[in-house]
């Protein structure tokens, strides 16, 4: 049984923010959930998938975020509550439908959760998705604690039904991926019966009537939000300064006020309903203070909206001094923490605050200098290391300044030393293939560098397929390498259409990537990246062969998945006699260049060594050593 479907009301659990949201959806009687995985949002739908059988709900991993939102909307149109979750980049993909769905409207509650990744811990950018709610004229909620994440999700469905439109919620990494106390509520058992009323067309037209209706619902929402318990104030009646904050900022703001001992002077107004603003409520607190500090993650969203409101009501509330991102008291980038709020408060109040003594600081600095960097690398035994190794040597042998256009997934590491810095471009999902399609048309201007694009198996279905179609249609010339590791590994091994199993655990006919490519009349080859020789030769042949888009599928299961299923095939050791160590012609090819973390240097002898804690016995490195010093013994 999954933890989120535990039928024990009042039980207190330690839940991840994402699990809390999933539980909230179950408590609200959600029937349908859909998403494309993306850190830090994936566990919302992943935990609902685990609970699907118990709870009699339908959960799917869709091929991309736009389709996921469409699937959720279909449920809503039929009278079933639905949730759709994605990361910030995903909203860009889904936004085309979202900015039509807002005019179309919904029936049963439809919640769209978007999880942002301030500091881009696991993302290509740190976009603030809240701007979309303003653009789409849709309500936006921002939970500040784990318990609240659950309660807000529950409320969001009611809210969505009361305005017959989508309700948006913004999570951030430190809510979604953090853990905290959550008290469980009741789980409803009855489910609505779906029915699509053909009398009511679900279209955006007439826009000139639907658009004004959206604005009317914003007015209604402002009224509702003025009385929402998710907006709350704590602090002195008349405050020297009020911190206005939302989402994860609330806990940091509280802690900073405690640390600085400013409780008597500083109040905190927490806004849970950030769009449209609860104007009456905010004006009331603006009247109580002359100074306001905004604490929020990424863009000055609350800050800008409150300032706009203050400008409209300047006469009633009097002049204010605003502190926040615009005044540079709070940084414009990176995630929030209580130290950042402490820094802002001590600046504003011109007070002393020492984190540590100067002597301690000096020792800390010294220690920091000693600590080596840990750049991210591929796991030991990872098929991508082998794939990139072959691409690297093929491009070197070809010697025409060929380069790689990269994409999103574990193999995004192809941009750093782990992937031999091969990948020279990276952007959105599928961008590798799209850019390659563009580069591949530049020969008429004298462009002669070969292009190899990278794309994962999951990315192929998400966004690279249209780019490959484009390449075929326009007769573009490049090699598309599909790194097929049989999973969406980066985000936690969710299945995709090529795997043969779906989120409900049902066996389905896998979509064969090679078949799809062949249908596009691309030349397709498949190789096992652990066959270094064969893979390199195939690449060289393709580089020399006739033009057009060619596809090379490098297929080998993700090392982490493999480890779960089978024992390591080899036991590895170094033959110290054969290893040339520092004198190696390749200058220790294995550790300096190949870079599997399982290969280390014996500090005393200067020779290569296997770290038996790290090595997973994949055997690959034995093939790269020019003297045969890396020995593999088959495990029984």
């Amino acid at each position, binding site marked *: 049984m999954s933890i989120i479907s535990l039928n024990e009301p009042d039980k207190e659990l330690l839940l991840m923010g994402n699990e809390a949201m999933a539980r909230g959806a179950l408590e609200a009687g959600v029937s349908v959930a859909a998403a494309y995985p993306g850190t830090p949002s994936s566990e919302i739908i992943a935990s609902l998938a685990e609970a699907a059988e118990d709870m009699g709900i339908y959960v799917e991993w869709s091929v991309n975020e736009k389709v996921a939102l469409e699937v959720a909307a279909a449920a809503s149109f039929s009278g079933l509550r639905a949730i759709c979750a994605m990361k910030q980049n995903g909203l860009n993909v889904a936004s085309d439908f979202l900015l039509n769905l807002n005019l179309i409207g919904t029936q049963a509650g439809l919640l769209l959760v978007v999880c942002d990744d301030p500091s881009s811990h696991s993302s290509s950018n740190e976009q603030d998705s809240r701007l979309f709610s303003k653009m789409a004229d849709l309500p936006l909620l921002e939970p500040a604690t784990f318990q609240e994440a659950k309660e807000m999700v529950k409320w969001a469905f009611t809210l969505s039904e009361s305005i017959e439109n989508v309700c948006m919620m913004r999570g951030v990494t430190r809510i979604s991926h*953090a853990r905290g106390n959550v008290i469980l509520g009741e789980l409803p058992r009855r489910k609505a019966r779906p029915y699509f009323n053909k009398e009511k067309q679900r279209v955006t037209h007439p826009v000139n009537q639907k658009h004004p209706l959206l604005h009317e619902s914003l007015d209604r929402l402002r009224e509702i939000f003025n009385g929402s318990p998710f907006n709350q104030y704590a602090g002195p009646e008349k405050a020297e300064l009020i911190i206005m904050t939302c989402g994860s900022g609330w806990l940091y703001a509280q802690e900073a006020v405690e640390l600085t001992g400013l409780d008597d002077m500083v109040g905190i107004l927490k806004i849970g309903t950030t769009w449209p603003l609860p104007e009456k409520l905010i004006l009331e607190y603006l009247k109580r203070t002359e100074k306001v500090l905004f604490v929020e993650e990424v863009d000055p969203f609350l800050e800008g909206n409150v300032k706009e409101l203050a400008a409209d009501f300047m006469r009633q509330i009097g002049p204010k001094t605003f502190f926040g991102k615009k005044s540079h008291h709070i940084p414009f980038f990176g995630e929030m923490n209580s130290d950042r709020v402490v820094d802002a408060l001590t600046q504003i109040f011109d007070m002393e605050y020492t984190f540590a003594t100067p002597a301690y600081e000096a020792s800390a600095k010294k220690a920091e200098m000693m600590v080596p960097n*840990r750049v991210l690398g591929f796991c030991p035994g990872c098929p991508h290391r082998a794939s990139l190794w072959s691409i690297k040597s093929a491009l070197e042998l070809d010697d025409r300044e060929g380069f790689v256009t990269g994409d999103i997934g574990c193999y995004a590491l192809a941009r750093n030393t782990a992937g031999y810095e091969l990948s020279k471009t990276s952007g959105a999902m599928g961008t590798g293939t799209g850019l390659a399609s563009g580069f591949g048309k530049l020969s008429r201007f004298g462009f002669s560098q070969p292009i190899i694009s990278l794309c994962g198996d999951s990315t192929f279905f998400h966004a690279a397929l249209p780019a490959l179609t484009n390449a075929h249609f326009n007769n573009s010339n490049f090699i598309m390498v599909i790194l097929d590791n049989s999973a969406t590994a980066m985000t936690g091994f969710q299945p995709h259409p090529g795997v043969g199993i779906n989120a409900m655990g049902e066996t389905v006919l896998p979509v064969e990537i090679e078949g799809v490519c062949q249908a596009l009349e691309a030349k397709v080859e498949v190789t096992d990246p652990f066959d270094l020789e064969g893979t390199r030769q195939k690449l060289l042949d393709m580089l020399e062969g006739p033009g057009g888009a060619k596809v090379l599928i490098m297929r080998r299961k993700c090392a982490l998945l493999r480890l779960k299923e089978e024992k390591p095939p080899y036991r590895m050791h170094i033959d110290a006699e054969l290893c040339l160590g520092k004198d190696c012609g390749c200058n220790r090819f294995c550790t300096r260049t190949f870079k599997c973390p399982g290969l280390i240097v014996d500090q005393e002898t200067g020779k290569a060594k296997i770290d038996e804690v790290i090595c997973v016995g994949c055997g690959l490195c034995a093939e790269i050593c020019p003297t045969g010093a890396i020995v593999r013994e088959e495990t029984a």
Partner: protein
Amino acid sequence: MNEVKDPYNLIITGVGGQGNVLSSQLIGQTLVNKGFFVTIGETYGASQRGGAVMSHIRISKKKQQSPLIPRNKSDVVVALEPVESLRVLAAYGNPEVVVLVNTRPIYPVDVTAEKEIYPKMEDIKKALDELSGQVYYIDATEKAMQMGSPILSNMIMIGALLELELIPLSTANFIETLAARFDQKGLEVNVSALEEGRKAIQLAGHG
């Protein structure tokens, strides 16, 4: 047992794949069962790929704390890898913090590629002395390998932590949580790993 300081701030740090995320969850759930507010902030977007992984575990009787410990405010640091203890103390240490260090290094690829230097153990020890109140060194990985799997090193470190009675949690409480999570065989291995950690601290002679 620490009753005074609220919130009490524990950091478990290591390298992706060492299992500190699961360890912090198990500790956290046990504390919630005992009526505490627990907040865990963990960075594991990168945990599968050799990056530094750190969990902040914040324990309070009063209220839900923020998921990140403020600068210099850690109370105890469990480092599953030696230099990771320094990385953490440089930001979160103070003269009172208690540190438990697994002595087995995991070399970053830039170190094996000789672009960076991994400090000598004696230099690490000197720096740790300057940055903490007390340090315990435990050969957890070696012990874990003797027990059959390096992944057990994190349970050994937790066994040591529990033995020090710094967090309001007894070994018995913790084993109850393990029992709900693992099958009989898994439970037995983990319990004996905890026991190894307990012995290691006794040998180090605290008290």
